[in-house]
Every structure is written in C-alpha cells, then in structure tokens.
C-alpha cells in the first residue's frame, strides 16, 4: 500500500475535477478497492482449510434463496400451493434457507474462534453480525407467510413477545400483508445490502490471519491460487 491518503488528488485531471462529488467518490472507490483486490486470483496459504469455505457456501445459499424467492414472487401463491413444480420451488426456497443458516452459523463459529475482528476488521465483524440478525428477521417473516397452520401458530405465539417490546404497535405479526411485504421487499434488500458491505469489507481488509501469523512480525505468507495450489 502507498502512503497516499485514500481519494487524494494526485494527477492534473484529479485537480481539475477536485470539486466534483462524483469524481471524489470515484477516486476514493478506486483507491479503496483496486480491481485486483476486489476480485483477487490469489489468496494467503493459511486459507487452505475447509473452515474458510463456509462464507462462500453461505453466499451461494443466499443466491439460491433470492432466485427461488423471485420465481415464487413471479408465479404467485396459487402456483406454489397447487402445482407440483410450485411445491418443488417452494421447497427449494425453504431448504436453501436451511442451508444458508447452517453454513452461516459454522462460518460465525469459525470467525469467532479466529477473533476475526483483529487487524482493523471490526466493521467486517459488525456487518456480519447485523447481517445475521436481519436474516433471522427475514426467515421469521417467511415462516409467518407460509399460509398454513404452522404460520398461524408461530404468529399467534410471537405476537405476545413482540407486543411486550412495544414494537407490535407498528410491526404486527398477525398482519399478513405487512409481514409479506417485509419478507419479500424490505428485509431481502437489507440482507443483500449488508451482506454486500460485509464482502466489501472482507476485500478491503483481507482475510484475518491465524493467531501465529502476525502481519507485522511474520514474513509475508506464501500465496496460493483460488484452487489451493501453492505459488512458486
């Protein structure tokens, strides 16, 4: 890394556009996320462990959740409740959520025991925590909008808990339409944005090294390719 501050004015063109907010944002983005750092083709050798796979497995599951959710939204309830293909896509939506939380919890455990907030990575950890909490809310509203006895039971049980916090005054779990809108619009947007920020922070600060690999004291770690091949 250079000593030039992020977004600093360094060229003649930069000086000419120094007062333009679009140019300032562009320069800061280019400095914070160089293309090679944003989409790297090599990773540190210590990443050659299965425990580092669960972050991307969580992302793949989230992609499946969004894709199947979009198909369900396009076709509508009369499709997913009646046709066999609708049942199949509905089940894919459920099981991709199950996989999402399964992988995310293992990812969380792994990062917790690595103390992954070390080395100016507090914002990476914080965005992960917030993403997890918003995901729980998204999954909860999904259970409320199944349109079956299960969702009736969950909503009537949950209303007392929500009402005891005072949030029930504007967030009514018995209001099917409100819960459906939260489930298919607001919470997915929230999860996607926060997960996107989380990934950007990972790319910005890099993967946290193991405890015995200090970035200042230890020599630069051997790098590998994305397939785990050791570089020469």
């Amino acid at each position, binding site marked *: 890394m250079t000593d030039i501050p992020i977004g600093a004015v360094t060229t003649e063109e930069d000086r000419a556009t120094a007062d333009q907010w679009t140019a300032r944002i562009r320069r800061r983005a280019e400095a914070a996320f160089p293309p090679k750092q944003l989409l790297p083709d090599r990773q540190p050798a210590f990443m050659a*462990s*299965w*425990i580092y796979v*669960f972050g991307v497995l969580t992302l793949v599951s989230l992609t499946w959740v969004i894709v199947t959710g979009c198909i369900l939204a396009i076709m509508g309830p009369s499709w997913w409740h009646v046709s066999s293909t609708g049942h199949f896509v509905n089940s894919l939506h459920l099981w991709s959520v199950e996989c999402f939380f*399964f992988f995310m919890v*293992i990812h969380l455990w792994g990062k917790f025991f690595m103390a992954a907030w070390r080395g100016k990575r507090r914002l990476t950890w914080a965005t992960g925590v917030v993403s997890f909490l918003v995901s729980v809310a998204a999954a909860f509203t999904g259970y409320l909008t199944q349109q079956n006895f299960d969702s009736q039971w969950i909503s009537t049980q949950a209303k007392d808990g929500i009402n005891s916090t005072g949030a029930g005054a504007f967030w009514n779990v018995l209001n099917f339409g409100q819960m459906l809108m939260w489930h298919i619009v607001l919470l997915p947007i929230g999860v996607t944005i926060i997960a996107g920020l989380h990934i950007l922070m990972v790319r910005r600060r890099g993967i946290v090294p193991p405890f015995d690999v200090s970035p200042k004291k230890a020599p630069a770690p051997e790098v*590998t390719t994305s397939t*785990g*091949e*050791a570089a020469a």
Partner: protein
Amino acid sequence: MFFGVLLGALINLNGSGHYIHWGFIQISVANLTVILLMIVVFVVAILIPFPKRKEGDRE
C-alpha cells in the same frame, strides 16, 4: 418422487414432533439434530486437510 418415498420410509415426518425436556430446556429432536450436525461439520472442517495440487500438476 422415488427419493421422497425412500426418505419417508426412513424417517416418518407425518407425525407430531418429538421433544426433549431437560430442566427448563425444551428442544425438538429435529432442532437438536441440526445443531449436533453443525458441530460435527465444524469439527470435521477443521480436522480434514484441504486438498492441494501436487508439484507435478502445475501448469
């Protein structure tokens, strides 16, 4: 359809759920199974070595 019948023969999902009570703790067998499976996968992910290419396989 075949796999659904096969799974249904192994685990009957049509009945009421089974719960485990331990003091004030109450958890369904299904949830407990998922938690135990996550712990197993977590431990296995740490212990199993990640595959690496041999030196001769480099391009």
